[in-house]
């Protein structure tokens, strides 16, 4: 198979063009695994179907996650990729590396695997793409020697990830990388041994721009925000006005979702009580505006992909929480969520679906949080209220509206 001239005319097409070519990447690897992978791919391009089978239970000892088993359905033709598992290697928070550590990772993967990776997987892991069953354990050993560990898969906590936050962004309202590392270490057991009804993902973003798409794809989205006034550098505002690049009225003021800004050509005023911390004005004038000083995060819960009740976005669970190590309040909340969902969640039911099933009000009751109007976009419109009446002095309560 691997000796002859190019048998991959279709995929070869994808070597051309200005965008970096994944085909070139595969071809650059001179080993039989990579060659067979290319062969399988060519076959898929001919057949218009994939040639991978459902994964089996493979992994490293003592872990219930971190490896995705994968077998080929043409093992005779492509024996080198007959078993072609991926390993999810927990990346360092913020995806920062030194050349040194990258080279060492490459060395491990050259020795034990296909030499192909994803930098990175969608959850954030370093994906070691294509490992035989036998090589899983040795690879793992080398990785731990190097100070790396596996990430999550299956009904585990998944590898937490974050935007680069304070490392390189002026808008980070809390230390996303610090928190990501802290939570990852705190919950090693949950990350490696499936304790849940289904997967659970954390994603941390330093501000409402949400550069890690946390509100769309994390069971818990921790997004930075502030409570006090936007910091305004009046001189810098004038600079922007003078620059001609920005029409402050049209581009900034009129795009503010609550119209809480005004600009008379001289002074930019913000009615911070009405600001919903959307970040737009700050984004538009980074030199002139900055988030306030009383910073923390909003904790949202429940986003996920569509399977099976339809996709969800995370929704507000705690409107504002200070984010300082050791993050006790946050961890208390996490533990409460996990306990409730762990006990009552159905198999393959994400926490967002679970909350909808049992009702958010009910859920809050159970985990001991007070309901607040910030958790909803609007109160119920239907009259189907499950009044609880065990408590007879409710009458009194109801009267002090």
């Amino acid at each position, binding site marked *: 198979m691997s000796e002859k001239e190019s048998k991959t005319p279709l995929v070869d097409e994808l070597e051309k*063009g200005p965008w970096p070519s994944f085909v070139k990447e595969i071809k650059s690897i001179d080993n039989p695994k990579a060659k067979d992978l290319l062969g399988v791919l060519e076959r898929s391009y001919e057949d218009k*179907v*994939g040639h991978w089978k459902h994964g089996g239970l493979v992994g490293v000892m003592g872990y219930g996650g971190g490896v995705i088993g994968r077998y080929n359905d043409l093992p005779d033709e492509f024996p080198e990729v007959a078993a072609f598992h991926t390993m999810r290697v927990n990346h360092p928070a913020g995806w920062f590396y030194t050349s040194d*550590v990258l080279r060492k990772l490459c060395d491990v993967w050259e020795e034990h695997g296909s030499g192909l990776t994803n930098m990175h997987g969608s959850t954030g892991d370093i994906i070691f793409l294509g490992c035989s069953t036998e090589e899983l354990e040795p690879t793992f050993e080398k990785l731990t020697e190097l100070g790396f560990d596996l990430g999550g898969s299956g009904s585990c906590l998944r590898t937490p990830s974050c935007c680069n936050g304070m490392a390189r962004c002026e808008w980070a309202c809390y230390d996303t990388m610090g928190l990501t590392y802290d939570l990852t270490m705190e919950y090693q057991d949950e990350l*490696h041994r499936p304790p849940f009804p289904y997967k659970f993902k954390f994603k941390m973003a330093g501000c409402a721009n949400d550069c890690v798409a946390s509100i769309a794809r994390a069971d818990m989205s921790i997004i930075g925000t502030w409570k006090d006034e936007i910091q305004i550098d009046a001189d810098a505002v004038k600079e922007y006005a003078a620059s001609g690049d920005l029409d402050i009225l049209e581009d900034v003021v009129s795009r503010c979702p609550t119209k809480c800004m005004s600009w008379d050509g001289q002074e930019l005023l913000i009615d911070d009580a009405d600001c919903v911390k959307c970040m737009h004005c700050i984004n538009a004038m980074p030199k002139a505006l900055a988030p306030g000083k009383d910073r923390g995060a909003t904790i949202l819960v429940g986003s996920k992909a569509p399977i099976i009740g339809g996709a969800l*976005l995370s929704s507000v669970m705690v409107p504002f929480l200070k984010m300082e190590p050791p993050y006790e309040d946050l961890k208390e909340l996490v533990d409460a969520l996990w306990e409730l969902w762990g006990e009552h969640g159905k198999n393959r039911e994400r926490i967002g679906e679970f909350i909808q099933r049992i009702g958010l009000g009910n859920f809050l009751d159970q985990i001991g949080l007070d309901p607040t109007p910030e958790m909803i976009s609007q109160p119920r419109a239907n009259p189907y209220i499950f009044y609880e009446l065990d408590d007879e002095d409710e009458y009194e309560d109801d009267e002090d509206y």
Partner: protein
Amino acid sequence: MSTNIKKRVTDIGPPHYEQFLPPIIKENYGKWKYHYFMRPGVMVHVGESGDQLYTVRAASPRLCSINTIRLFADLADEFCGGYLRFTSRNNVEFLLSEESNVEPLIERLAKEGFPVGGFGNSISNPVHTQGWIHCHSAASDASGVVKAMMDDLFEYFAEPKLPAKLRLAFACCLNMCGAVHCSDIAILGVHRRIPEINSETIRVQCEIPTTVASCPTGAIRPTNVDGKQSVEVIEEQCMFCANCYTVCPSMTLNDPEMDGLSIWVGGKVSNARTEPKFSKLAIPFIPNNPPRWPEVVDAVRNIVEVYAANAKKFERLGEWIELIGWPKFFKLTGIEFTKYHIDDFSHAGETFKRSLHFRQ
């Protein structure tokens, strides 16, 4: 064996990020003041200290060989003390303290085939998934479609010339790995055939009750094939979600003619200006046409161009569509509106037009 276990180190977690941060970041951690874009592909962060950090962002195919990673490492050594990172959209970023190194690095990257760009109001690296490279569930290839599409849209990566950021994403099946469901433009692999049941293997590979229960529409019923336990699928009730396949390998949906791609538009995740939004269906189906999926590429380009020509500064695709209204979006793009566009899932009624607010 037991000695082996003794030696084993587990649960050490990832290395602490701090050891990988360049000195300029350590010093300015949490103390950045503002940023500006120096030129396409380069942004500068200015610290309260006055320090300037130059980030050079290059495209990456995401599927990286160790050769390419070593190349990145070499470039990092040469131009920025060995410090680099990857972004949440899989670009590679070099972290420079020396302005003078910026242009030489860019030249080298270009030479090696890793063009810079993706900052500001551009199309950045599409988030994507495994496709025919690794996943059993894929209704299309991922890397191939993304490569074909980005070759075509390359100008929008190289230069930030759009009204706002435009986030592309690709997922090869309805599991939607990645943030496909909230992207400005998402390409989604779809199956359109009911599961083919392998009655030989099903009893071995799957639990019949679990399989039956897995179907959200109740389309799967237990049955007997040649006196053996199996299942059947009621064709009219199947919405091709593949949830059954996820729990039972003997129910495959892959099919050369019936699989293909759908296109979704107008999602976003940032809170800037408007609230995060889901992407909505634009084109229900385009057949697989490897290696370059020209119909998909054209369809995406068409949407990008119509958007670029009509939206105002700071208007994300979905924000712009909501301003002009969906009818006009279909008119301007020439995309046919079909009954497939009309939601018929759980909250369908919420998407019906319950007012007179439309252009006559």
